């Protein structure tokens, strides 16, 4: 059976970019020097940040878990080498925001002392769930740049996986880390793919490689045993061929649903680097501790690929390739199309760092000023998602977020093709990111206010309910005091009313008794009676005078 197929499908849009790959892929991958300290961000993946499970002062061994995953979409972090935890605090991290984030700092002891670990010689003896747990515990995330926890993508649930795709396209200009990995560790990639295939029970296996990577293709072909069912596919070099949806379409002719996952069409896609990491995790029991990173660009005198421990400061790596800090005008993590600028070169290399692109100061050009959009439509021609970037821009600029979504903002993969071709030099992707962030924020605000309103409504409801209950309780009590079969008019049959009546009568009697003359005026003589009458008459006259003082 042939390892090659020629049938590919051309995804819409896209660009032919000068690749600049040859400047960094002529040297073998070398191990970066062991740094004096490592700074490990707790968030090196998509999802919740890991939770530190070591304390300052703790000694750690190479491969020891130092932070555990928080929830389903998360990944643990391991000590890339042995040493001592010296700090758990906020440090500069590689993130577009440029903000600091929680990190564990390890002072390296240089002994490279491993924690006890063991691999599994035959992965076939493990079932899918055991494999996933091992991969999860090894902290493996997608190494293509997105950093999605890999074990989740190996859990198809009830869906049947028709095709497992390995992404070896590496379509961004300058980046060659996957290229070098395929050239030098083809065997590990193939074995990693077999492990994934076993876990997924995938029927077909495809590896897509852009046709500018001839040596990588040859290496993989060599690593594939005879009569293997893994197919290597040469795909045309066209950015963004390595976009997951674009690659799947190129290889299978199937489109991932707009708001869906590859799994919806029976496809799972992993990066070649992830496959190699899975091989090491399963067969050697090694967690993810390092990766290959491309150091390239005009600011680097010796561009090459290094195998780097996570947590190594970028500035130290740059020194190792003899880059002068003062010469670097701009440092980008990732490729020139989708990468982001690093503002602090002390930030460490993390699991998603595939490339450090350092531009020399002299090559730094002021980006041309943005001019108004003339609706030329060049952006729509190159859009691989078949969007209308000019309309998205128009409505994003006007903050008409409903309209932006009418034009399918969330199908934008931020590949940057539209910005690249725009003759008005409008930073289109920046507008889409802004619109997305605003919409997410509005969504969060809405959820918050919804929750608040709900709480308020619940409270009103509760108060009303309590009022009703009180009323009912009183009514029930009143009912309970009535003898059975009693009706309102019949006093004799109602003990309560009878009691009230009796009490009233008693009060009446008392009142009547109070009209009785005092005892000391009983049985008076006539003279005494007259005297009293006179006093009373005087009193009455005086009282009358008091009331009419003016007369």
């Amino acid at each position: 059976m042939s390892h090659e197929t020629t049938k590919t499908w051309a995804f819409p849009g896209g660009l032919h970019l000068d690749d600049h790959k040859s400047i960094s892929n002529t040297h073998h991958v070398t191990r970066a020097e062991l740094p004096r300290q490592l700074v490990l961000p707790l968030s090196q993946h998509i999802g919740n940040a890991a939770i530190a499970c070591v304390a300052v002062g703790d000694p750690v061994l190479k491969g020891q878990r130092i932070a555990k995953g928080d929830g389903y979409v998360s990944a643990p972090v391991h000590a890339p080498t042995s040493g001592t935890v010296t700090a758990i605090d906020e440090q500069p991290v590689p993130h577009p925001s440029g903000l600091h984030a929680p990190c564990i700092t390890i002072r390296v002891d240089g002994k490279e002392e491993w924690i006890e670990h063991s691999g599994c010689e035959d992965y076939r003896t493990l079932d899918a769930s055991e494999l996933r747990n091992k991969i999860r515990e090894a902290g493996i995330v997608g190494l293509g740049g997105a950093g999605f926890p890999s074990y989740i993508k190996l859990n198809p649930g009830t869906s049947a996986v028709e095709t497992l795709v390995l992404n070896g396209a590496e379509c961004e200009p300058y980046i060659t880390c996957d290229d070098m990995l395929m050239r030098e560790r083809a065997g590990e990639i193939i074995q990693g793919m077999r492990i994934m295939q076993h876990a997924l029970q995938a029927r077909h296996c495809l590896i897509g490689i852009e046709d500018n990577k001839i040596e990588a293709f040859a290496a993989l072909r060599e690593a594939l045993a005879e009569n293997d069912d893994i197919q290597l596919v040469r795909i045309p070099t066209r950015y963004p061929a390595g976009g997951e949806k674009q690659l799947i379409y190129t290889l299978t002719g199937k489109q991932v649903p707009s708001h869906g996952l590859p799994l919806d069409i029976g496809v799972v896609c992993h990066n070649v680097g992830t496959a190699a990491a899975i091989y090491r995790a399963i067969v050697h029991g090694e967690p993810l501790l390092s990766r290959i990173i491309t150091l390239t660009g005009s600011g680097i005198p010796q561009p090459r690929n290094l195998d780097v421990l996570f947590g190594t400061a970028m500035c130290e790596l740059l020194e190792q390739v003899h880059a002068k800090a003062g010469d670097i005008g701009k440092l980008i993590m990732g490729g020139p199309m989708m990468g982001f600028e690093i503002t602090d070169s002390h930030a460490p290399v993390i699991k998603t760092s595939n490339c450090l692109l350092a531009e020399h100061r002299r090559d730094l050009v002021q980006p041309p000023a943005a001019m108004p959009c003339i609706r030329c439509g060049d952006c729509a021609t190159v859009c691989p998602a078949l969007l209308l970037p000019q309309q998205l821009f128009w409505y994003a600029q006007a903050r008409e977020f409903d309209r932006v979504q009418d034009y399918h903002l969330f199908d934008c993969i931020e590949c940057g093709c539209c910005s690249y071709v725009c003759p008005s030099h409008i930073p289109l992707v920046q507008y889409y990111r802004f619109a997305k962030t605003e919409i997410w924020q509005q969504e969060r605000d809405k959820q918050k206010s919804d929750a608040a309103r709900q709480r308020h409504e619940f409270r009103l409801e509760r108060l009303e309910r309590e009022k009703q209950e009180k009323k009912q309780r009183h009514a029930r009590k009143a009912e309970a005091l009535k003898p059975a079969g009693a009706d309102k008019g019949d006093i004799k049959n109602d003990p309560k009313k009878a009691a009230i009546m009796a009490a009233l009568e008693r009060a009446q009697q008392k009142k009547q008794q109070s009209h009785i003359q005092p005892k000391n005026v009983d049985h008076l003589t006539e003279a005494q009676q007259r005297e009293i009458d006179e006093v009373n008459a005087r009193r009455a006259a005086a009282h009358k005078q008091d009331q009419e003082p003016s007369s």
Partner: protein
Amino acid sequence: MTTSSPHLSTPNSVSRLMLHVGYALIPGIATYAWLFGAGVLVHILLASVTAMTAEALVLMLRRRPMASTLADGSAILSAVLLALAIPPLAPWWITVLGAGFAILFGKQLYGGIGYNPFNPAMLGYAMLLISFPLEMTRWPAAHSLLTQAPSLSDSVSLIFASGVSMDAISAATPLDTLKTQLALGVGIDATRTGAETGKLFGQIAGVGWEAINIAFLLGGLYLLLTRRIAWQIPLAMLGSLALLATLFHLLDPQQYASPLLHLFGGAAMLGAFFIATDPVSACTTPRGRILFGIGIGVITYAIRNWGGYPDGIAFAVLLMNMTAPTIDYFTQPRVFGGGKP
């Protein structure tokens, strides 16, 4: 300063785009000047100076950066396109008025480049045609039809000295003649072979006019091949115009002119490649552009045959400009992964 990705961009720019459109106009302009006199060059100059002055004035009032906007070339391009639509010996103030109106009312009043819903040049032209029908319909005959062609200085004095008679060199255009003769009940064949009217008609669509149209077609093809304009609008416009013309011509050749006359007469090629393709006021979706082009072709044909004007490109373009936002909304492409329509 932190910038967002991508960190690469093409050296392409709006001014470069406009510059290439300008290059593509050269064969047409040269042919025009060769066959109808240098008056057209005078008008191009006049219109350009007026447009730049008007644009600079507004930018100054709006306190907008002047250099970059003036340098984008869009005002000059509008001016050139308008000048090409004005009779080459029309008085100078016609062009000044038209170009000023186009920039002020057609463009800057809406917010400048990118924001105008109508094609500024065609808006200026429509205003002139409605306001000054006499000046706007006095076309000179092609030089080959004249006993003595006006020199450059003749043209300049005709343009700037109002009141000088240009009757000796003016003639109705072929499209105009056809319309008048049809109204008088003269069939097309008789018009094309008539002693007076016949000499206006060349091999295809009128002496001079066919050559100009071919020259604009060449320029248009250059823009198409270098992908500076989208193919949908010119193809749909010319296609629908040709289709309708063929259909009616087959039904009644005496009443309806041949498709060749429609395609190579009047402003057909200039309109198809340079005017209808103005990106700002045209549709931008692929399907929308086809509808937009078809609309212009159909309306042009309707105005030419049954309307009040001999040519109808300007009104057709303006009418379709109005529909562009709606067409765009309803012709959005199906997103990648959006399922079968």
